[in-house]
């Protein structure tokens, strides 16, 4: 069946624009989906395709995308990380608290925040790799612990971030938002890690077949430590960017962001059963979510209905991707 479906696609390059459109989406996967969504939003709202608004979309996507790059590592290795939202809030709180109450120099406070994020990931990774806890449970625990610690440190109220950190939320040259730059940089790093580093290649092997990876000499347990630590590190960066945009670290920030991150990774074409995934796909997944929210805002759709739409888009995106894979086999 699959072979015929593909043959059909190749043989008849679109009779009607509608068919052409659906085939283009099917063939190009997540990117096709994003293009389709942009076309629809542009048609429905005259304000959508304006440069300033597109940059806004980038800013809105940035925190989710940075979180999702880290989660991509975990999902490619057939794990899951539910803690990234909490870890982001914890790291940001640590940066603000260390600079304000602790009186540390800003660069040291930021390093400390990044270390806390990586350390939280390292602990999750140790629980998974050496404690043999299911990743779901280990990171669910970290979700709770991280959020709790953020509340403890901050006393439950927002802490202002130092002004030099706050500049991460500014725009360069009056138009280029720094969060978009950070997102691009983290995306490039994620792509490099996945495609070109030992740990990155090991992620695919572990996610594809952990036993075969172990029998081929991959140090699976140590790799898992690194993988979860990377996820925590990316979460810390996302947390700092978010705090910069809000000009304060809020212990209650980024609640539920882990689900957006996972959705972005999956919309981007990664499989939750591991072994596949791309940084570019994840970026597209995060952009799809951001375009949707931005477009619906422009159309004055209520926040309640936006949640419904988001859920539908996640389901349809993954459904299309499944169809595409099946027809490519």
């Amino acid at each position, binding site marked *: 069946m699959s072979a015929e479906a593909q043959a059909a696609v190749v043989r008849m390059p679109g009779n009607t624009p509608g068919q052409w459109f659906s085939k283009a989406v099917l063939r190009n996967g997540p990117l096709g989906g994003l293009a389709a969504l942009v076309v629809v939003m542009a048609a429905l709202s005259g304000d959508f395709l304006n440069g300033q608004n597109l940059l806004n979309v980038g800013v809105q996507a940035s925190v989710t995308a940075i979180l999702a790059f880290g989660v991509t590592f975990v999902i490619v290795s057939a794990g899951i990380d539910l803690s990234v939202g909490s870890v982001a809030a914890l790291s940001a709180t640590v940066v603000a608290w260390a600079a304000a109450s602790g009186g540390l120099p800003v660069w040291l406070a930021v390093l400390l925040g990044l270390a806390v994020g990586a350390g939280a990931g390292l602990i999750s990774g140790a629980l998974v790799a050496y404690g043999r806890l299911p990743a779901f449970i280990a990171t669910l625990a970290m979700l709770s612990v991280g959020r709790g610690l953020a509340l403890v440190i901050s006393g439950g109220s927002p802490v202002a971030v130092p002004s030099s950190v706050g500049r991460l939320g500014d725009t360069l040259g009056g138009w280029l938002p720094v969060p978009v730059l950070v997102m691009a940089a983290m995306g490039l790093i994620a792509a490099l890690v996945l495609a070109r580093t030992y740990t990155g*290649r090991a992620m695919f092997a572990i996610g594809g077949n952990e*036993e075969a990876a172990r029998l081929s000499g991959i140090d699976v347990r140590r790799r898992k430590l690194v993988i979860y630590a990377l996820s925590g590190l990316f979460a810390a960066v996302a947390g700092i960017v978010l705090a910069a945009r809000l000009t304060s670290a809020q212990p209650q920030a980024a609640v539920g962001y882990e689900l957006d991150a996972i959705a972005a990774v999956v919309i981007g074409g990664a499989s939750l059963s591991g072994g596949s995934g791309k940084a570019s796909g994840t970026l597209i997944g995060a952009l799809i979510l951001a375009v949707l929210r931005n477009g619906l805002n422009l159309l004055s759709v209520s926040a309640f209905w936006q949640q419904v739409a988001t859920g539908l888009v996640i389901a349809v995106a993954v459904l299309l991707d499944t169809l595409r894979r099946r027809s490519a086999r």
Partner: protein
Amino acid sequence: MTGVNDDVPDGGRELLRVAGVTKSFPGVRALDGVDLSLRAGEVHVLLGENGAGKSTLIKMLSGAHRPDEGRILVDGQETAIHSAQDAERLGIATIHQEFNLVPGLTVAENLFLGRQPRTRLGLIDRRALHTRAAQLLRRVRLDVPVTVPVRELGIAQLQMVEIAKALSLDARVLIMDEPTAVLTSEEVGTLFGIVRELRASGTGVIFITHHLEEIAALGDRVTVLRDGRSVAEVPASTGENELIRLMVGRDIAEQYPRERPGAPGAPLLRVRGLTRGGAGKGPVFRDVGFEVRAGEVVGLAGLVGAGRTEVARALFGVDRYDAGTVEVDGAVLPPGDVQAAMRAGLGLVPEDRKAQGLVLDASLQDNLTLARLRRDTRAGLVDRGAQRRAAAEVAGRLKVRMSGLGQSARTLSGGNQQKIVIGKWLLAGTRLLILDEPTRGIDVGAKVEIYRLVNDLTAAGCAVLMISSDLPEVLGMSDRVLVMAQGRLVGELSGERATQDAVIELAVRPPDGTDGMNRTNSTDAGDRMQSAMEGSDVG
């Protein structure tokens, strides 16, 4: 059972004809003008190497694939089989290699899944269900309660349930895809009895097997497939060598082309007193010690469960051990450290290719270079160019049949998959390769290629430790054979003393040296061993 002539099926009318059927998948022409004819009251053997197109052909007859070209005729009428329902309506039942059973449901529920007898109220009629299921089980001589969940059955019992399920369809055409692969010789006897009954009652049976000796025992005619073409239709009495020639397309001068080199070199691997306690019932292995020298092939024979795989995993550092040492080139390896074993030059081709040897959905390049990933990493970055060149070189040397290095390992045939696993260790610079059941489920042609590779390795000064339940293979390829029984190394045979009888004798003797007591039973146990060994030859 109607007393139809048992050996000459020529009188039977034609039930099924496949004429000029062609089927292509992206990049592969799976079937190319295949012809096949099946008469009533005939056992028609379909023979071919893995990847020759047998599976595609039977999937076409069971409605899973449609032909691109060509015709399928049932009772002389051209038909289209588009679904499993179409096949069932036409009276074609298929027993696939993969079991289609639901583990949590009982035997009876599985046998009548989707067509359970109903009461007048529309509820399932348990009594009728159980009576009819019990009748079917008696027919296949399977002695298990019909109420037992399928999950609790062994693999041979599952196969018999599948056969019973197909029988319940009262099919006129029964297709059996390697039904004997997982059966012991006694169960094979039962199966042959059933097939002969079916033939006598006018059913046409298409039978796929890799065991050539089964062909003359059961078959009437043989259609040989090679590279997607039907190359010959011959009587089942055709000699095995001729069948192999037809199947492979050339003569296989020697099935086990071991080229014994001169005197073996220095000891590469030395294992001493290796012991691992079991949980409760006796040790997994105890006091195992042996040497493997450069240029040697050492066979490790024994019953399934004798501890051979466990020893191999322990010395490769996969599993721990409680006592003993493993030395390579005189240096002791740290226990439980795969990376250290690899650095010392060891490599393991595990017994379950798909579950342990390959990352199935990863590319061939990624699979081939997995064991040298660390070595290809410089300054934190993997040199993908070097990996691509290395993978291309070894894939060419091993003659892997592929569309490209980007192809996923899942889509290769069994023999080519095994070449990838072996190629992975060639690329890792392995000097002592442990092969655990290296040719299980692999066709004759690919087997010989793997044997030649073993020759190349030993000629280059490497050594091979080969675990195999295929006795002719162990004897044909090894320079020395070690025999294990119940976790102990019970003997070493070489030269003329290495015979099947001698290996079996050692394998079934109690390992504590108290022989004589069970001596009288050894022939009987030997038979059991042979059937167990044949049984483990999963296709």
